[in-house]
């Protein structure tokens, strides 16, 4: 589903060049739930951003569903993200001036979907995450867990093949974190959505199919969890 070939990412300032990712080779298979772990600053989020076409690698190639994305224009990348990828962020990234339903509709605004169909799909997505009774609320009226559910609804409303989750439980207590994790597992199991999740939490990571560990921008481990935790 996702193939990263010899990915390098470096940030250059006037005086120094920092290598954030160093020759990463990784394949994520369709229907897989993969977690990425590593210490802070090891390049997990950078890797996720590159997979999600939110950032471009300095070197290397990103293939999604067999398609090389390196030379796509800004418009093509935006279309690709819209059609293929759903994002979940640690800090939710909800638009506070829009109601829950409008927040969930957001990805559909950039597709040729009628207003009534948008509402219908957004309602369905909110029902899936158990927030059908909070559609008219503003994000400020929701708890952290509810906000993340809205973010998940927004990520799945366009029925993407891939969901990229950057520490989705990082801002939540363990109970809420478990709820969100269960929701992601359910999505993966029932819809067959490929999920890549960055996390610091071993407990969450062990619930996924496969764990990739990064250290100082390099991939140091790649194991299926059965082998690691069996």
């Amino acid at each position, binding site marked *: 589903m996702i193939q990263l070939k010899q990915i390098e990412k470096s940030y250059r300032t006037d005086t120094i060049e920092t290598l954030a990712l160093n020759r990463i080779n990784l394949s994520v298979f369709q229907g897989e739930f993969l977690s990425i772990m590593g210490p802070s600053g090891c390049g997990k*989020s*950078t890797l996720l*951003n590159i997979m*999600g076409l*939110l*950032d471009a690698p300095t070197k290397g190639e990103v293939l999604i569903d067999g398609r090389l994305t390196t030379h796509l224009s*800004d*418009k093509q*990348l*935006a*279309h690709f*993200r*819209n*059609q293929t990828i759903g*994002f979940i*962020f640690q*800090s939710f*990234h909800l*638009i506070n*001036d*829009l*109601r829950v339903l*409008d927040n969930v*509709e*957001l*990805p559909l*605004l*950039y*597709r040729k979907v009628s*207003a009534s169909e948008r509402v219908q799909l957004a309602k369905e997505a909110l029902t899936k995450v158990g927030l059908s009774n909070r559609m008219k609320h*503003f994000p400020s009226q929701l708890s952290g867990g509810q906000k993340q559910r809205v973010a998940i609804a*927004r990520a799945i409303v*366009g029925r993407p093949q891939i969901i990229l989750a950057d520490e989705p439980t990082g801002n939540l207590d363990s109970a809420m974190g478990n709820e969100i994790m269960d929701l992601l597992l359910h999505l993966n199991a029932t819809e067959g959505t490929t999920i890549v999740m960055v996390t610091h939490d071993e407990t969450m990571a062990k619930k996924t199919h496969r764990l990739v560990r990064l250290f100082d921008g390099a991939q140091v481990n790649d194991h299926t969890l059965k082998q690691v935790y069996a």
Partner: protein
Amino acid sequence: MISHLFKLIWNKKKQNFLLITEMFVSFLVMFAVFTMIVRAYNNYRHPLGFEYDDVWVASYMTPENIQSDDSAALFQDVLRKQLQSFPQVVEAGFSGHNFPFAMTMSNSMVSSDQNEGVMTNFYNADDNYLKVLNAKMLSGRWFSKADDVSKSPVVVINRKLQEELFEGKNAIGKYIEYGGDRLKVIGVMENMKDKGTYTPVENGLFKRIDAGAAKWTSNILIKVKPGADAVFEGKLFKALSNTIGTSVEIEHMDKKLTRQNKLSLIPMIIMLVVGGFLIINVALGLFGVLWYNINKRRSEIGLRRAVGASGNSVSKQLVGESLVLSTLALLIGLFFAIQFPLLKVFDLPASVYLVAIALSVAFIYILVFLCALYPGRQAAAIYPAVALHEE
């Protein structure tokens, strides 16, 4: 997308209130400026209705020894003949003190059987006045010697007065009431813009300078041949001074027009400068607010990019939001502006207000578009990963 923009704007109505107010005030300022410009342009487009090139004005004090009406009329005849004896003089005619481009005016209310009271400028003119200024008669005739024996005082009116007082119907032979007198209309002439290029056409009524008025009429309009120079002007001055015996002043009508036009343009220039400064302030304000908004909304921009918005569509959305806001401000502004033609404020034609409204609307849209364009482009250049990371 439009409904999405409306939702976003409505949900942020408190933050948008000041911006809408700023655009609304800008619209009103521009409406005032454009009304003045459109009015001046309409006036400018209207022909003067007479020729002022090579027309000089000789003003003098009637000598004290001329006491009776008959001697005053005789004195004017002498002067007229003296002027006509110069080969460089084409024609000479007497006028009251409010000749074209003079800084004086004389007006009063007149009425007719059809219409009660309209404000009208009064002019005193002799039989040669029309020829000196090469003004055009529309119907009837100009004054002549035959009017000396007329039973009732005769007048010539302009086209505008005929339209206002007689509803555009032929006024020849009809009477105008003024101060208890009944003035018989013998001619209708084309409108004359005697107050300058940028002033409006006003109602005009010409009274004949008869023997009774000669004593109070001390301005001679002299049409000279092209090329009449300062040497001739000096000669003319000398001759008139010798005949009149009091101070004489000769002015050129084209120079008087230039002076008159400057006076008309000064308030317009002041208003334009004030309006210009206001617009610069508004533009800077809008630009600053939009720039600030975009920086405040970097996370939202990053998110939109992540869920499928291209840089171009983010830019379009921000410009679109600004244009929707300006539309709301313009709707409020239009409500007030449209009262001006409806209530006929300042007695200006409705077309002036309507054109000014259209220009103001276009101006505000262009201003907002330009002010939103650069911040919008800046937003489009934000890299999604960077914007999302900043949160």
